[in-house]
Structure formats: structure tokens, C-alpha cells
């Protein structure tokens, strides 16, 4: 193990251990228990977005299959833990293995056929999610349309109360997933995937075992999505095909990763944090009164509009996502974050900590994005030589010397 790997392992372990005791501190510090579940949901999205990104973000193969892998995970818990009485802890690894098996068998067929590259691959994975849903729908052993209630599942009580348990389970899976994503990025596998992303044929002719690398990454991606789905089944508590296999999971992981940046393991984490905190707080906003109450704008449907808008803006204008820009301008972002929080405290003193965080986060994002756009523009006008499209896009492959 190289020194860098040791350091990474150490820091992940330290973060994990520190967070592990967060639920214990809930009583003494006295923060609302909701924060544990809020934290769990955030960790859930970390795991989902990171697991999607460790294949799609690195290799460039656009997969809509996340819903299927997540769904396999959820239904493994449903069938094994709820219907057959397995303890949840035993069902979780099986869920990961089944999802990985689905990913690997799909990959085995699809990656063999060169003509299924590109957008056709995206559609095959979309179709697989539909097929998995259709099978679950006709099989009464799985669901058969009745749904599965999970209130009798045997939960791991040694992990504490329900919110503590969810938080800790989510933490373990998120840390494993993100650690895997970070490790892959800096490993041979990561180099292979990034070269596949740029030019698969050339990668193969320079010795990259492209088939094997795609299989490994897709399998792992599916594995972690399945693990995370298995835990999330408990949070859903009553699973139905329409909910589990909806477009929500693939949509959110795509938006989160695109927003944060797909070429670095931190990208999905940044994206998930922004999207989850923002949508959570927007939930409350029902009506926006402007001009002293003369104009009322209903915000009921704003969540989706913001998600859609973010996706469009990021894809068109900020192709590399926020992470590279954050690295570039961390002090400006940190400053804006603080200013955002201060403004929130003055404007709405009773605002909850999450609300303040969102305010700070929006400040940071607002500073990062347009300022970078202006800088891009300035650079492209000022420089004598042709500058590349994205001046900030320092190569991140295997990155960081």
C-alpha cells in the first residue's frame, strides 16, 4: 500500500468513526432527531450518486440502470427480510451481490457488442430498469403488484434507536461507496476508465483491458447501489413497484453528479449536498409573497423546475461541474458561504441551521458559477493564443500529484 493510499484510508476511517458517534451526541447536544434522518438521507444520496458516478462519470458510459440496481436492493430487503424473516443485516450484502450480478450479466452482453456504445447503451440500461420492474410486477414471489410492508423486519437493535440505526447503516454504506469511488479514481482502474472515456479504441490499443475495466466498474457501481437500496427499503417502509422503479433515482443521481462534477469522486458529494439540502428546504415553501403581499407565487412545483433548470444550465454552461471550480476558488467560495449565513441570520434570525447552511451554500454557488463564467469570457478574449473551451478544466485524471 502506498503512502497516499494509507493516508486516504486513514482519513476516511477517521471521518467514519467521528460520524459514528454523532447519534450518541444527540442527547447531550440536543439537536433535533430529525437531523439524524436528514443526515441518513444525505448519506443515502452520497452512496447512490457516488456509485453511479464511479462507473458513468469515470468511463463516460451513460447508465440509466441505477433505478434497476437500486430496485434490486430494495426488493431484496422486501423479499428476504420482510417476507422470509431474514434479519436486515443479512439481507444487505445479498442485495449488493444480486445487484452486482444483474450489472455483470448486463455488462457481459452489452460490453461485448461494440455497436451498443454511446446513447444506445443508455437506452439499454433504461430498458433493463423497465424489464426488472415488469418482472417484479408479474411475479407474486417478488411483489406481484401487492407491495410489501416492512414493519416487521428484524432491525439491528445494537445500532441504537431507529434514527441512529439508519444513520449508522447509511454511514457505513456511504463511506464504503465513497472510499471505493476515491480509490478507483486514483488506481489503475480509474486511469483505465478515464482513458475509455476519452477514446475507448485507443485505450484498448495502449493496453487497457477495456472490457474487464468496464465490467469491474459497472459491477461495483451496481453492488453499492444495491447495498444502499437495501437499507433504504427500511426508510421507504412500504415498497411498491411504481415508487421503487420511478424515474426519481436515475434523475437525481444524474443531476447531482452533473452538478458537482463527474470526473472527481467529490463531485457527486458536492452535488448531492446541494440538491438534497435545497429540495428539503424548498419543501416548506408553499407560497411566495412579493411586493408586500400583492403578488403571490405558488412554489409548490418549484422543486422540479429547479432540478430541471439546474440540469440544463450545468450541461450547457458548466460542463465540468462545480468541484473543479471550487478547488480553483475555494477562498472566494468560503467567503461567500459565510456571507450567505450572515445574511440569513440577519434577515431571518429564527432560521434553522439547515436553512442557514442552504443560504451559505447558495452564496457559494452563486459566487462560483457566474464569476467563473465571466472569467472564462475574459480569458477567451484576452489571451493571444486559442484557449480551450474550459480553461478551468485541469485534467483530473488520476489527478493530484
Amino acid at each position, binding site marked *: 500500500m502506498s503512502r497516499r493510499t494509507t493516508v486516504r484510508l486513514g482519513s476516511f476511517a477517521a471521518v467514519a468513526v467521528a460520524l459514528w458517534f454523532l447519534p450518541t451526541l444527540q442527547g447531550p447536544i440536543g439537536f433535533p432527531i430529525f437531523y439524524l434522518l436528514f443526515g441518513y438521507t444525505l448519506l443515502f444520496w452520497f452512496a447512490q450518486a457516488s456509485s453511479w458516478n464511479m462507473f458513468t462519470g469515470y468511463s463516460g458510459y451513460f447508465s440509466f440502470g441505477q433505478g434497476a440496481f437500486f430496485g434490486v436492493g430494495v426488493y431484496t430487503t422486501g423479499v428476504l427480510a420482510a*417476507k422470509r424473516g431474514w434479519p436486515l443485516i443479512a439481507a444487505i450484502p445479498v442485495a449488493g451481490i444480486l445487484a452486482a450480478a444483474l450489472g455483470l450479466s448486463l455488462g457481459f452482453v452489452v460490453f461485448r457488442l461494440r455497436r451498443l456504445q454511446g446513447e444506445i447503451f443508455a437506452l439499454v440500461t433504461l430498458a433493463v430498469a423497465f424489464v426488472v420492474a415488469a418482472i417484479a410486477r408479474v411475479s407474486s414471489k417478488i411483489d406481484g403488484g401487492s*407491495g410489501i*410492508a416492512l414493519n416487521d423486519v428484524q432491525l439491528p437493535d445494537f445500532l441504537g434507536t431507529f434514527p441512529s440505526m439508519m444513520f449508522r447503516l447509511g454511514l457505513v454504506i456511504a463511506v464504503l461507496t465513497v472510499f471505493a469511488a476515491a480509490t478507483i479514481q486514483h488506481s489503475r482502474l480509474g486511469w483505465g476508465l478515464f482513458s475509455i472515456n476519452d477514446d475507448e479504441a485507443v485505450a484498448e490499443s495502449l493496453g487497457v483491458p477495456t472490457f474487464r475495466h468496464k465490467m469491474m466498474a459497472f459491477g461495483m457501481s451496481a453492488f453499492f447501489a444495491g447495498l444502499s437500496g437495501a437499507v433504504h427499503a427500511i426508510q421507504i*417502509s412500504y415498497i411498491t413497484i411504481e415508487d421503487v422503479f420511478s424515474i426519481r433515482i436515475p434523475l437525481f443521481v444524474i443531476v447531482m453528479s452533473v452538478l458537482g462534477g463527474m470526473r472527481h469522486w467529490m463531485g457527486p458529494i458536492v452535488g448531492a449536498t446541494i440538491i438534497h439540502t435545497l429540495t428539503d428546504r424548498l419543501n416548506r415553501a408553499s407560497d411566495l409573497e412579493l411586493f408586500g403581499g400583492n403578488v403571490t407565487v405558488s412554489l409548490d412545483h418549484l422543486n422540479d423546475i429547479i432540478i430541471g433548470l439546474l440540469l440544463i444550465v450545468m450541461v450547457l454552461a458548466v460542463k465540468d461541474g462545480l468541484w473543479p471550480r471550487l478547488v480553483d476558488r475555494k477562498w472566494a467560495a468560503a467567503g461567500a458561504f459565510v456571507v450567505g449565513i450572515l445574511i440569513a441570520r440577519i434577515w431571518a434570525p429564527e432560521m434553522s441551521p439547515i436553512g442557514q447552511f442552504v443560504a451559505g451554500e447558495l452564496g457559494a454557488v452563486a459566487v462560483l458559477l457566474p464569476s467563473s463564467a465571466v472569467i472564462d469570457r475574459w480569458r477567451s478574449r484576452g489571451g493571444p493564443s486559442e484557449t480551450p473551451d474550459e480553461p478551468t478544466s485541469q485534467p483530473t485524471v488520476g489527478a493530484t500529484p
Partner: protein
Amino acid sequence: MTRSSQSQFLRGLILLVAFAMIAAACGSSTSDTTAAASPGTTAAPSTPDTTAAPGTPDTTMATTAPSGEPIVIGSTLALTGFLAATAAIHKVAGDLFVEQLNANGGLLGRPVEWVVLDDESVPDQAAALYERLITEDEVDAIVGPYGTGTITAAMQVAERYGYVMPQHTGSLTYTYGYDCQFPAWPAGRNPNVTNSELVFDALESTGTPPKTMAFVINQFPGTMYVAYGQPDTDEGGAVSIAADRGYDVVLDIQYPSTTSDWGPIAAAVRDADPDFLFLGALGVDGPNLIAAMDALDYQVPGMFLQWPAPGPMLGVGDSADGAMSVTAFEPHTPFTDDPGYAAIAQAFSDAATAAGLPYTAFETQASASWAAWQILVAGIEGAGSLDQAADCDYLLNNTIDTVFGPIDFDPDQNNYYGDL
């Protein structure tokens, strides 16, 4: 060169606009905590002729304006997502109830504020939001969401914190073991038995019961439960009850909720040509199938529609003749014999029209919603406090008056009553 800098500028502009929007939205989301539904805005008495919300035990409070810190009641509703159509009814009903409650003296003499979050029709979201309502927003009481999945998820949270949870229409009766959950609609503990027996009894009471029967069932948990009984136990279920009763089941098919082409299903029904069609339907399935059968020049002599969601027979016209359904409340006699309820039905209809709902009658969904609020209020007023355990005790040990009549809750029946 100019072109590219122009487009760069354009991109910058788009971004600024986008984030200005988000910032604006967020500002409101946070300031909303104070602005939402203060009694001043919701208490405007739009229906001054309504005397009191029936079921609010102490009607003498009517003339006293509520005062003091507002009591905050939290809930989620499927404001967006696939259940949003029906949840909109619950929103209108709840708003109206709170408005009337405040106009009639509030709760325990204090004004009531209702915080509604959007669970997007997604159970995990509902669970997280109830967690938030109870532990972060520290609401004084909760009301259930709409939709079986979200209700089931929310109930686990309520149980964890011992909150009383009146709920409108949860259909998986057998899974609800929590003593302080109070279903409002009279579905009964075993709709997988009682629902179809009610239908078959009604058919047999006509003197000319059908001989052949077709079952077309939406693959939705509630409809599946009624049609095929409890999963993994096969207890009850309309199909087997029909067979037991000697009906000839000539067709028994299930369709996915996403069905868009009703032609083949209509063809299958026409081919089976049953005397009676039992449609385990949701939403617009009924009208869609009826229209498709119509297009084949075919009508069933009689049919049963399980859960007509809002506007069920909307726009089908004469073809809906011969269709029957179960209902807990309809805006006509005998349900409206009580003048108070007649006024509510009218007020609801007005509010629903104002909110732009296409189907404005005060029927099952709206009345169940109303009853859930009545149960909550009865518990709090009866126990005279916001203590959840006391409220729960009161509800379990007293007869509660609702729009559906007096109810006694029995935990052995999972608090379900009635026989729909």
C-alpha cells in the same frame, strides 16, 4: 471570437437569472416558517352562516376569538407526484377545516396553524418529513398524509414518537398495529372480506343477482388486497369469495397502473361477456375502460368500481349507467340530513371550485379528510391538552362524533370500523 464571447456572456446571464430565482425561492422557504398560515390570513370567515365545525365538541366557544400562541399541526400531502390529484382534495378540505376551526374559537382557545409539506407521493420522503415535523419543527400534533404508501411510512414515525395520527384512507388495514393511529374512513378491519361481501350482498338483494362475474384488477396494493386478500396468506379476497358464493368467475386479470391502451382489456371483457364486472380500479381506470368498451359497442350489465378517485365518472356520460361504487359520503340525502354537514358540503364545493379542482363534490375523500381532522380535534379538546398520550387515551375510550356518525375505536380491529 465575438461570437464565443457573446455566448459566454449569455451563459453567465442564464446562470445569474437561475440563481437569483433559487435564492428568491430559498429566502421564502426560510421566512415561510413565520409567514405560513397565520390565523390572520386563514381565519377570514368566508362562510359566516356555518355555525360550527361539527365534531368540535365545545361549540359555545364559537363567539370567542382564539388567542395566544398558535397550535401547530403538521402533515405532509402529495402536493406533487402521482397521488397529487387526490391529495389536492385533502388540501382543500384541510384548509377549510382549519379556517372554520379558527373562525369558531380555535383549539383549546388558541389559533391553529397547519404546516403542510410536500411528500411528492413518495413514502421515504413522507417518513423523513414527519420526522422533521415532529423533531425539528416540534409541531403540537400531526394529521396523516394521503396515499397508502405514505400513510404506512408516516405511521412508523408517529409510533416512534407516540404521536396520535388520524389518517384518512390507509388501505392496508392488517399492517397497522399502532394503537394511536385512527383511520377516518369506515373501511373496516378486513376490507378484503367486507368490501366484496357488501357488494355481493347488494347484488343479491336486488333479487336478480348476476351469474357470471369478471375481475379486472389494478396492480395496486390496496386493490390487490381487496381482490386477492392479504399477501402471503390469501385470506379473503373478492375473487375467492365470489367463487365461494357460487358465481362463475369468467375473467380474472390484473393490469399495471401504467396501462395506456385499454383496447385489449376491453376486448377481453367483451369476450368473457360477464353479467357483472368487478373493477379494482383507481383514478381514471374506470372511465378509460368504460370508454374503451363503448368503442367496442359493448356495455356490461353491471359493474363495481372500487375506488373512484376524484371525478371518477367525469365525462363518461350515459355509458356509466349500471355502474356502482362504494362511498362513505355523498353530497345528498341521507348524508346531508344534518344541516351542519350540508353547509360543509356546500362550503367544500365552493372552496374546491375556487381551487380549480375539476371534481368539487364532498364525497369519500373529502369527507374522510374532514373526519380525520374531527378526530384530531375531538382528542385534543376531549383530553383538554396537547399531551399525545392523553389524547390517544381519550380517543380510545370515548365515542367520537364525525361526519360519518359516531365512532368507537377498537385497537383489536386496528381501530378500523365500518365495512366498506
